[in-house]
């Protein structure tokens, strides 16, 4: 999932302050799972903003809506009437969702309510970890399903740096050493010989370093 965290409430309040009617639009997929922008977070944020503006003797009308995904037009359509009724949209989706809304509603102000963080998983309830950098050339088969590009602080591709202690990274002792995990996992899988394969310097052209990327599926284009 794409993880995000809600912006500080006072930053959000400043963003919406110029508008009289605001639609807080949640996204029911990734940001819901990481407790940043689902239905519950929309309700809490709406309540907090109403309290804050009442305290400031400012009247503001806040409408609440959560759609399944803000990154797909099919779902975005469900928000159309709500968008029409309001002066601005405070989107609690990731940056992709915010931009998809802005693209779909060209004459409407769309404001971001969350800071998008990374592609990750829920490690345990309430703890989310980064697992994928979207480098565009996946090598997980070689590394036993553990990504050194993302999870090794030094992005080493040909074995550990030697600085880890008791399986923890020397850069951040709260982070497991990715190479410690890779070696443990390859040992379990009987694939330790994978480490004899030399991995050449990574070509970052397929990553964001090569500029904004586009994925084209010709078979789905009419």
């Amino acid at each position, binding site marked *: 999932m794409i993880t995000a965290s809600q912006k*500080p*409430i*006072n930053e959000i*309040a400043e963003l919406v302050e110029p508008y009289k009617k605001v639609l807080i639009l949640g996204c029911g997929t990734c940001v819901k799972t990481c407790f940043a922008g689902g239905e*519950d977070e929309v*309700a*809490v944020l709406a*309540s*907090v903003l*109403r*309290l*804050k503006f*009442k*305290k400031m*003797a400012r*009247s503001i009308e806040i409408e609440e809506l959560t759609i399944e995904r803000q990154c797909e037009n099919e779902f975005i359509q469900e928000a159309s009437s709500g968008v029409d009724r309001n002066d601005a949209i405070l989107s609690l989706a990731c940056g992709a969702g915010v931009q998809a809304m802005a693209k779909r509603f060209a004459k409407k102000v769309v404001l971001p309510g969350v800071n998008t963080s990374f592609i990750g998983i829920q490690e345990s309830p309430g703890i989310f970890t980064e697992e994928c950098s979207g480098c565009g050339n996946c090598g997980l088969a070689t590394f036993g399903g553990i990504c050194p590009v993302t999870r090794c602080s030094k992005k080493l591709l040909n074995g550990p740096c030697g600085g880890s202690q008791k399986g923890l990274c020397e850069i951040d002792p709260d982070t497991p050493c990715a190479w410690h995990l890779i070696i443990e996992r390859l040992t379990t899988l009987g694939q330790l010989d994978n480490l004899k394969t030399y991995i050449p310097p990574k070509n970052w052209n397929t990553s964001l370093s090569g500029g904004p990327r586009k994925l084209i599926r010709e078979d789905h284009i009419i």
Partner: protein
Amino acid sequence: MKIHNKPKLTLFHCLNSFKETASMFDGCEVKTVKMACSSMTKDVHLLRAFESGADAVLVLVCREKACRYAEGSIRAEKRVNYVKTILDDIGMDGKRLNIFNTSSKDSGSINDIIKKTLLELEIIGPNPALNHFN
């Protein structure tokens, strides 16, 4: 500036942590919200209590390790603490919201909690979000 004569309290409680007695709420108006377990305490419910006019919100939960559902009171405490930080952030004063470990058999301590809350309200004043629109 006083906006109403008697302070308004909203009291969320789990079934096992609170039992109302006759004189418990002298000097204040109280709305009680009964929950099967304090784990049902949700951020938005606490906030909406303030939107609905509460000057203070109390959450009464079972004593530590006495929760029948094991983690209910722990979850409630985390949510209360989260909402307290939000209230501080928006200038509402997190002291308006508090959580206490109580037992329905101990009405004396609950009386003390309410008295203490009313005294605190004399210091921090009424709900500041209601001065302008209610």
